[in-house]
């Protein structure tokens, strides 16, 4: 009975953060499908990454065994999450770091804002982090008069373009090189007007633009890919070096991490450091991975904070089937193979977590009513399950969540009528004859069933039912 005093699992609060869209998936997807440039950009990018990823995964003789291990480690983490977090907290504190706990987005934003204020800084630099996108940290910092500067190239493109992220790994995947050039020319102070759309030239422009920020900003905010309970070590996996800049140069480092990112032991990194880059960017190893354990005197930030975030994760954990969505290591392989994502792009999902994993994670974080259409944003083709490096059974989760989604009243009435008809042989025979007559009506169903045939033809009913044919023999 005492447990009720400790609080029940809670979903992420409304009115803060970026987990809910303004419209349902079908409405947003319909508009996105009209954008042919978007579809060209997405097809090009996802085709590229699928080929790269398949090639480097094919080099490993033990990919299947690594996936199985990754999946089992994550299952074990979820089963022992409270004790692992307590172990992590103790290890980080012992190494000179400070651990904070945030029950939801509002509390996390308040903690980070207060920590930045305490340093007196007017500006923070950020490493790309899904958790801080999820909680709307940038908006909260701006409201407090603090300027957040995104340093990841894709995040910078999104921020300069006053856009929204549309992919977990590459938030600007919906932009091609020509569009990125346009954004840089328009928004980047002091940019060379002769800027071309060569990717290397665009990358060099970002290097020049951010150098001074890196050298002069005393506070950084990061996420974490992994946190090792055993040692208190945090890891950030990145490519450009902006992560290293933010994790090394400032005096104060604030890391915001979802509670599910903890892993039990240092040795577990040997699994995830093989799975993540190959599934994510299609590289044998990403250019830079930084690992730090609390404070190292004389090297890097001397004030190190870790904010552990719930924001709906306890509610996801409460569903014994749904909790496997928390195994996600944010590689985005499921987005890159999804036929629905490839056509609609990430914005249609409304949440910072788009694609197949977003379709199962977002509704659980917010509660079904706020994202009820997302579990239907899939054809259940299963490509996401095959691609997932930690073997999250996303199709199973989609079906599971569809069972929890509110169903239209008409559906229950129709199913009830069908069951009654099938229980009564004469009614059933009459219904079958009627279906035969419906051949005359053509390939579409009458209202209210016309939604089904709006985008597909009704199969032609046979001229005779099986029973009629049998009776005539």
């Amino acid at each position, binding site marked *: 009975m005492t447990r009720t005093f*400790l*609080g*029940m699992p809670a979903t992420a609060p409304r009115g803060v953060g970026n987990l809910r869209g303004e419209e349902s998936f079908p409405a947003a997807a319909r508009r996105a499908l009209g954008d042919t440039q978007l579809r060209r950009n997405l097809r090009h990018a996802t085709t590229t*990454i699928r080929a*790269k990823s398949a090639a480097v995964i094919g080099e490993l003789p*033990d990919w299947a*065994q*690594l996936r*199985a*291990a990754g999946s*089992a480690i994550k299952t*074990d983490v*979820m*089963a*022992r999450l*409270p004790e692992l*977090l307590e172990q992590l*907290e103790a290890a980080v504190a012992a190494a000179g770091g400070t651990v*904070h706990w945030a*029950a939801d987005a509002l*509390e996390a934003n308040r903690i980070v804002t207060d920590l930045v204020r305490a340093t007196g800084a007017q500006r923070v630099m950020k490493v790309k982090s899904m958790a801080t996108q999820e909680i709307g940290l940038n908006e909260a910092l701006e409201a407090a008069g603090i300027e957040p500067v995104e340093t*990841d*190239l894709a995040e910078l*493109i999104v921020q300069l373009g006053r856009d929204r992220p549309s992919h977990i790994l*590459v938030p600007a995947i919906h932009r091609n*090189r020509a569009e*990125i050039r346009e954004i840089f020319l328009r928004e980047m102070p002091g940019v060379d007007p002769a800027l071309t759309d060569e*990717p*290397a030239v665009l*990358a060099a422009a*970002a290097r020049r633009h951010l150098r001074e920020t890196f*050298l002069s900003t005393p506070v950084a905010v990061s996420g974490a890919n992994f946190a090792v309970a055993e040692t208190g070590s945090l890891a950030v996996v990145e*490519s450009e070096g*902006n992560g*290293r800049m933010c994790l*090394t*140069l400032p005096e104060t480092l604030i890391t915001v991490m979802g509670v599910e990112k903890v892993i039990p032991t240092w*040795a577990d990194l*040997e*699994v995830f*450091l*093989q799975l993540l880059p190959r599934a994510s*960017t299609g590289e*044998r*190893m990403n*250019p*830079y*991975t930084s*690992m*730090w*354990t609390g404070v*190292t005197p*004389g*090297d*890097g930030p001397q004030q190190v904070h870790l904010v*552990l975030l*719930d924001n709906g994760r*306890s*509610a996801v*954990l409460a569903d014994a089937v749904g909790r496997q969505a928390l195994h996600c290591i944010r590689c985005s392989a499921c987005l890159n193979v999804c036929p629905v994502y490839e056509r609609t792009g990430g914005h249609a999902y409304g949440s910072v977590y788009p694609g197949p994993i977003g379709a199962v994670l977002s509704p659980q974080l917010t509660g079904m009513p706020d994202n009820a259409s997302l579990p239907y944003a899939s054809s259940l083709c299963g490509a996401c399950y095959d691609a997932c490096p930690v073997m999250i059974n996303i199709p199973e989760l989609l079906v599971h969540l569809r069972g929890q989604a509110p169903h239209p009243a008409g559906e229950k009435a129709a199913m009830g009528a069908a069951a009654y008809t099938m229980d009564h042989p004469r009614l059933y025979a009459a219904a079958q004859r009627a279906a035969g007559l419906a051949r005359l009506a053509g390939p579409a169903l009458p209202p209210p069933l016309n939604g089904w045939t709006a985008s597909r033809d009704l199969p032609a009913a046979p001229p005779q039912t099986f029973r009629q044919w049998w009776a005539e023999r």
Partner: protein
Amino acid sequence: MTARDLILGRLRVALGEPPADPAAVPRDYRPAGAVAVDLDLLVHRLTDYRATVHRCADADVAQVVDEVLGGRRVVVPPGLPRHWLPATVAAVTDENLTAAQIAAVDGVVTAAAVAVAETGTIVLDAAPDQGRRVISLLPDVHVCVLRADQVVATVPDAVARVDPGRPLTWISGPSATSDIELNRVEGVHGPRHLHVVVVSAGAAQHG
């Protein structure tokens, strides 16, 4: 109630009763020690990700550094073997240099802690011959000298060998991004040029 107690309480309620026997983790993948080290594979993987590889004897490292950075200014960690530096470079030792001072030099020469052949990865652990993390970050050219006996075959080998208590930087090629159309492009914020000098005992080949 503190947020800590609230969250831990929520998680415990969410989990219900703990399972009687914790799930075992199958570790049927290649563990540390399972694969033989292949130096040629390391060279291939480094080169494939646009690092430049040099192979030479310890006595010839200075000559390689001269080829890469001769006539330019470099920062070096306090514990770097001085015979790796040719007379042609102006070396400044990092004794609490400011970030601006480090950013102003052309290159950096460091040793390494471990390298992974299969992935073409070098790991720095901030030991005295590698220095603070910042010195291998800001200059545009990084020359990293690697002893052959520091090379391991796989990621599990490297994870087993490094010390979690030290700040670790895993480097696989020069700074790069996949953010423009998901194609890898070299040269963003970190060093745009990575030279790896593999020192094999006795071998004096070059190139």
